[in-house]
């Protein structure tokens, strides 16, 4: 019974020697091992945070950050961006009438055109975005309301969409494809851009509609059920989303590589925005030649097929033209942030220097009792 009365002890430490049962056990020394680890004497660096020791770090950060800040700021400033709101809130705005009498169910589409003028030419590739404000695409129930399997081309999910899609799962007894609230609320305005040259003639600017989605989304995450040919048959047993005017296989009938679930406008929309004010890439205006600007300065007309209602929730719709740089779109924030932080660090470094010289004298004269 010896051992059981020792159980408690055994558990105390892995090395507390327990006597053997009945037999003559040679008592092993219980002396602990003299290793640096067990004696907690590992080689260690002990940084002591005082003004003196911390000083260099502040200056280094300051010196490092300010140039980055300047570079970022300059880069951001070089990006050209043009933005125009076409919601039609005001009575004098061209899309006022379209915005006013709207319903999701109307079959006729309302069009309006907005004139604008680019003061500066856009040199490189121009990205055309549509922007929505006050649109909570990040709402918890909204974000969840999709079926990734269905979009992946899973046939079972096509006929039996995920529960997450409720209440946009079935319509008239047929499963909706694509199901869910995100797909249901697909942005369906059509934007066309015309250049008005000096003599007043409109020239349509070619907008590239492919390449706007993530490559992985287009080629991996989104797939049409049963391949890209004959989508009509594939989606036969499905109903279109409630708010949609046309079925999913009619999104881009001209290009089978851009139709159905792999329609890039659809894919872009399905990537839910992080913040209530967001933009989504709509088209790309590719640079034609090296000597002419992609979008020369001058007058333009934006033709809008106004389908998407936002006024009910006080939303706004915008069209944005922007060039991009290595750090993305126009956003002076980071540059300013780096500049500010760099300067603050520099300033704090100076403060610490003063503190160090005025008060922190112990390190230099610690051995002289005061």
């Amino acid at each position, binding site marked *: *019974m*010896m*051992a*059981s*009365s020792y*159980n408690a002890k055994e558990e*105390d*430490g892995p090395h507390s020697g327990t006597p053997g*049962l009945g037999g*003559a056990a040679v*008592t092993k*020394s219980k*002396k602990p091992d003299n290793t640096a680890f067990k*004696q907690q004497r590992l*080689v260690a660096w*002990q940084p*002591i*945070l*005082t*003004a*003196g020791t*911390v000083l260099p770090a502040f200056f280094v950060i300051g010196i490092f950050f300010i140039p*980055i800040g300047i570079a*970022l700021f300059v880069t951001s400033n070089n990006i050209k961006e043009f933005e125009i709101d076409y919601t039609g809130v005001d009575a004098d705005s061209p899309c006022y009438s379209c915005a006013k009498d709207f319903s999701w169910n109307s079959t006729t589409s309302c069009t309006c055109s907005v004139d604008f003028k680019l003061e500066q030419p856009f040199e490189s590739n121009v990205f055309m975005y549509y922007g929505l404000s006050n649109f*909570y695409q*990040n*709402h*918890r*129930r*909204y*974000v969840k*309301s999709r*079926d*990734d399997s269905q*979009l*992946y081309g*899973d046939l079972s999910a096509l006929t039996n969409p995920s529960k997450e899609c409720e*209440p*946009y799962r079935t319509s008239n007894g047929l499963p909706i494809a694509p199901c869910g609230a995100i797909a249901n*609320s697909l942005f369906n305005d059509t934007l066309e851009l015309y250049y008005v040259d000096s003599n007043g003639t409109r020239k349509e600017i070619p907008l590239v509609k492919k390449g706007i989605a993530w490559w*992985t989304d287009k080629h991996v995450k989104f797939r049409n059920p049963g391949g890209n040919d004959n989508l009509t048959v594939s989606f036969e047993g499905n109903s279109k989303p409630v708010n949609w005017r046309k079925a999913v296989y009619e999104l881009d009938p001209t290009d089978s590589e851009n139709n159905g679930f792999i329609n890039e406008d659809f894919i872009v929309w399905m*990537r*839910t925005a*992080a*913040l209530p*004010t*967001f*933009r989504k890439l709509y088209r790309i205006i590719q640079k034609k030649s090296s000597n002419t600007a992609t979008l020369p300065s001058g007058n333009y007309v934006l033709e809008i097929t106004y389908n998407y209602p936002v006024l009910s929730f006080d939303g706004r719709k915008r069209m944005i033209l922007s060039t991009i740089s290595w750090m*993305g779109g126009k*956003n002076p*924030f*980071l540059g300013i*942030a780096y500049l500010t932080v760099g300067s603050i660090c520099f300033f704090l470094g100076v403060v*610490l220097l003063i*503190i160090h010289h005025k*008060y922190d004298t*112990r390190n230099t004269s610690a*051995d002289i*009792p*005061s």
Partner: protein
Amino acid sequence: MAAEVPRKKKKRKGRENKKTRTVLPNTLSEPNQRYANNQIKTTKYTLLSFLPKNLFEQFHRFANVYFVFIALLNFVPALNAFQPELALAPVLFILSVTAIKDLWEDFRRHRSDTEINHLDCLVYCREHRRYVERFWKEVLVGDFIRLRCNEVVPADVLLLSSSDPDRLCHIETATLDGETNLKQRQVVRSFYDLDCDFDPLKYNSVIECEKPNNDLNRFRGYIIHSNSRRDALYKVNLLLRGCTVRNTEEAVGIVIYAGHETKAMLNNNGPRYKRSKLERQMNLDVFWCVVILLVMCVFAAVGHGLWMFQYRGQRPVFEVLSPDGSDLSPITSSLYLFLTMIIVFQVLIPISLYVSLEIVKVCQVFFIHQDMDLYDEDLDSRLQCRALNITEDLGQMQFIFSDKTGTLTENKMVFRRCTVAGVEYSHDANARRLAMYQEIDSEEEECTSRGGTLPRRDSIGSHHSAPMHHSAPVVLRSHSTKSHRRTGSRAEAKRASILSKHTAFSSPMEKDVTPDPQLLEKVNDCGAQLDFLRLHGRPWSQLPSDLADIMDFFIALTICNTVVVSSPDQPRHKVRLRLELKSPVKTIEDFIKRFTPSRLTSGSNSSSSSSLATNRSSARGCSSILSSPSAESTLTKLEEEQQQSLNHAFSSTPPSYDRKLWQEGAKLRYEAESPDEAALVYAARAYKCSLVGRLPDQVTVELPQLGKLSFELLHTLGFDSTRKRMSVVVRHPLTDEITVYTKGADSVIMDLIRTEDTGKRRKKILFRTQNFLNLYAADGLRTLCIAKKTLNKEEYTYWLQRHLEAETSIQGREELLFESALRLETNLQLLGATGIEDRLQDGVPETIACLRQAGLQIWVLTGDKQETAVNIAYACKLLEPEEEILTLNANSQESCALLLEESLHYIQTKFLSSSSPFFQPPSSSSSSCHSLPFMVHRLGLVIDGRTLAYALDRSLEDTFLAVARSCRSVLCCRSTPLQKSMVVKLVRNKLKVMTLAIGDGANDVSMIQVADVGVGISGQEGMQAVMASDFALPRFRYLQKLLLVHGHWCYSRLANMILYFFYKNAMFVALIFWYQFYCGFSGSAMIDQWYLIFFNLMFSAFPQLVTGTLDKDVSSETLQRLPQLYRSGQNSEGYKPYMFWMNMLDAFYQSLVCFFIPYFAYADSDVDLFTWGTPITTLALLTILLHLGVETKTWTWMNWFSIIFSIFLFFSVALCYSATCPTCSSPSNPYWTMHRLLSEPLFYLLCLITPVVALLPRYFYRACQGALFASPAGLGAELKTGPVFEPHFLSLSELVKKDCKMSSDFSKAPANQDTAPQVKEGTGRTPLVVTPASTPLQVQTAGVQVTLPPAGGSQPVKYSRKSEEAEPWQSDHAAANEKQQLGAQASLPITV
């Protein structure tokens, strides 16, 4: 067999009332099935019950229930924030980690159980009519078991037969209580006469005994024989499971308790669980976290309601209907949202906090356990952590309650001086020899050469090494409990320690006593005279009374104990020296018969025939074990025996002193249960009065000139802490009188001395002995008084009758025996007193000084007498000579109250009148006690047990505390174990302080259990204290490192870790909270749910565990050099409530930074929810890890590794996760997100700036803190790197600034002392005059004596201040003769 039927009835009755257990032998009846069998199962679970039982146990922890509740909430479709299965993951993870740990532990237990259950033992088999080998687990209650030498007892067995001629069985109980000496167990009395082999088939008795209980030192019951005779059973008849049989060829017993009902198993309770102070504080902050969580949830819910309300029924496209298609009103929606938010924000309550804490604590325990400095080489023992979860409490102690004997002192007794019959024998030579040892000791510490400089010790060395070699392989020992630090060089100490594993308490130093020449001469003289008397047939009473006293004194020293004699060659083998056989007095009739013949005069030297042997042998019947001889035969037998013994005493030994025999005697070893006994026996041996053999009924003593004498041992009234004495009743072989020898504490013995009809000489002896006792006590010696008493036949008969009644009763036997002992021990005749030195342990004064510097208040609670305690206190620097000492001795409640009042006024007038209003009247003291440190003066308080009893009364305890806590040291003498625990409890509860109790003996157990942290010294007095303790140390001095270093580290590590945990979770959750403002308070999270849930468990877990285990804010050396640093833990500076809130604020700031920098960087861009959320997660992780970096004081490669590993882990997991499944983990579906992010420069730019901004304030604050207002700990940390300078510089200049209260107190105290006390008005009721009776120079060493005469009514209270140039005992001594002293002092009577 006629009694069979009533017995059966009894059995049934026994089952009904459940008060006793009836054991029938398995040879007669069916096995006693209803009692537990011997199979042990210490496992908690079986395969089937594991899951439900373990889960049930785990759900006792509230946090687990909470997290399961939240995980289940997730299954409600309207609320679910995450994938329900995923939300279960962390809870399941935590539960399964704990379950696996439990399972593993259980498996280990199971393995050891199986091993034990399958041990073999010999059990009597009815069919085979012989003993057969069986497994332990097959043993049943009622089985007969044959035990052989060195076997482990498989169950609690009642000893029925032993091969030992004395019917003894020797056992070693080291595994049960750690005591290393052999213990004797006796065969049940009715089987005593059985000579041949015990035959189980002939056994037909029934045993009635008490229900299984865990008291190792108690067993009560009786055995009913077939002739309805009853015999009482005692603990000496019981062999406990786990003991080892030694020195006995064979023993047979019947199993009484088996398996889990054995006393050993009932005593086996696992490690203890306590909640530490830090954890209690932490739980409060967990509560605050819950409040913050609820506030956040309510805020979000209200926000969501408002957000929905603004659309006023025009449902926007992004507002999804509930799954059933119904529209939710803003109110229901916000209600749902509230619950959703609880799920989303659940991380705020740190799920892994408890698990992490446990892991860290186990690691800390491991490191404490591994510390070389806490390992004692001599004892080969190291610190044991028995409680695994209160390591951090070690860093917060404020009060230490220490036992004295064995804790501060070695508990190794060295005989120093004695007084016999009023004459003091100072043993100067012995003192010189001891001093020499010490000198040599210190010399040889330096040079290790072992020359023959000291022939004496060398001879001792060789003397001891010889037996050691013989017996080393035989001995099995796991604990060595002795140390010999002072016995000479280290080598010798080591040898001695190996040796001491064989014999208890017998270092060379203790054994060798250089006799006092004067006393030796008298002893020889006495022997010669006795020899003369014997030759001339004169009675012993003709011996001169002083010589008779000396003789009696040494006889008492030799026999009044429980020392077992063993021969040096075989330490475990008892010396067998039986001169005659005689059974102890069993019954009153027996006695009467024995003593009826009036031939008790020693002169009757009749040469009666030795018919004893034949008589005895005829009485021994193999078959008739209970054949009681007729009264007639007994009578004659006893008569003859009587004469034989007398005859024998004088004739059987050679008349002359045999030198050779003496030499042999000198080699005998004594094994004692308490070290003083051994010291006394060895001392007596120096005077050639040596104990040569001890049997249960007989003690053999060798006396100078007289040779061997055997004393018939009639009764032994063992020592107990209440009586504080032990007695033996013997029949003196020379005078043939019934003599009682009593040995005990002087306070009790002195009260029992017969005073009324004694002569002048006796009174003188009494008086002088008292004086010498005071002297001894003042020298710090332990004093014992030796007294004797001669009983005449009638007295003895009368007493014996009552005593036997007491012995045979089952109910309240202890009490009855106690009373019986009290009846016997009266009207004693004082023989003398001894002074035994109990050495201080090494380093005790230094440790106490160091702990005191660390701000710990040290109270010593001891059972010793006041003078001894005071002097030990001086020796160990608990009291300083320049300190004033308040001594409280009161005889009644009223006088105690008065004394306390006076003391309080005294303190107030002396120390506080001038300085501070800090001190408050005692009535409100309990409420004002929270402020620490309180005023501690240079005052010592000494209080004795009786006064303590009054002071602990409810009405006085506040006053007592008020007095005690303003004293620097408190010494409670003569305190009982209960009082010890009451004092600890009082201080702990009333002052709300952290208490540590340290002790080594069974009397400290209650105190150890009551204190916040109990420390046991695994020393001389067995393992009971260790078993009850949380930490067990080999030595007192290790307390220093345990508290100052490990305590400090554990506390600061855990405090930092807990704060960091709260910070980490709050910071992470706040990110999501800020996001609610941008997602319509919809409960959406931009952080992928996998990251969210595994953030705590995986990505940020390791670094904090490493830091929590290894971080050192100050190095070990500095902590020990500057004990002041310990105060930070006492004041809870590592974890204050404001720190929690500061951390929370910092967490909110950092989360704001981590949220809004990406927010603005990605504002109005085409970023999607999770591509935006992933950088935020990364930034948060980096910030959190770097935050830990800022807080880490010591960077080892483990810290670096853990942080780099965490970052690496995050990225690799994220990359794998976002590369695998394109359709899984909706809604985040992070396919390729991380890869894309890593290809964008923006991501890196964010990673660079955000942590910098987030940590800037903290980093800056730390830098300024280091520069402007450095904490002592910070200074200490610097000390290591900086140049070495005197520690006192720091303590004077820097630390004192921090602790101005303490310093002002210290600086004021001596100043106050110089000013003479003034006449002060008390509360108004009691005007008090304190008269200065000395010059200022003397005042420095003044003591204040507050004494009250015992009489009630109008009592003069006297404060006497007297100079104490000499040793302090003089004042105490003087106090004893207070009349003369007080007369000299000016005093004023006080009317109560």
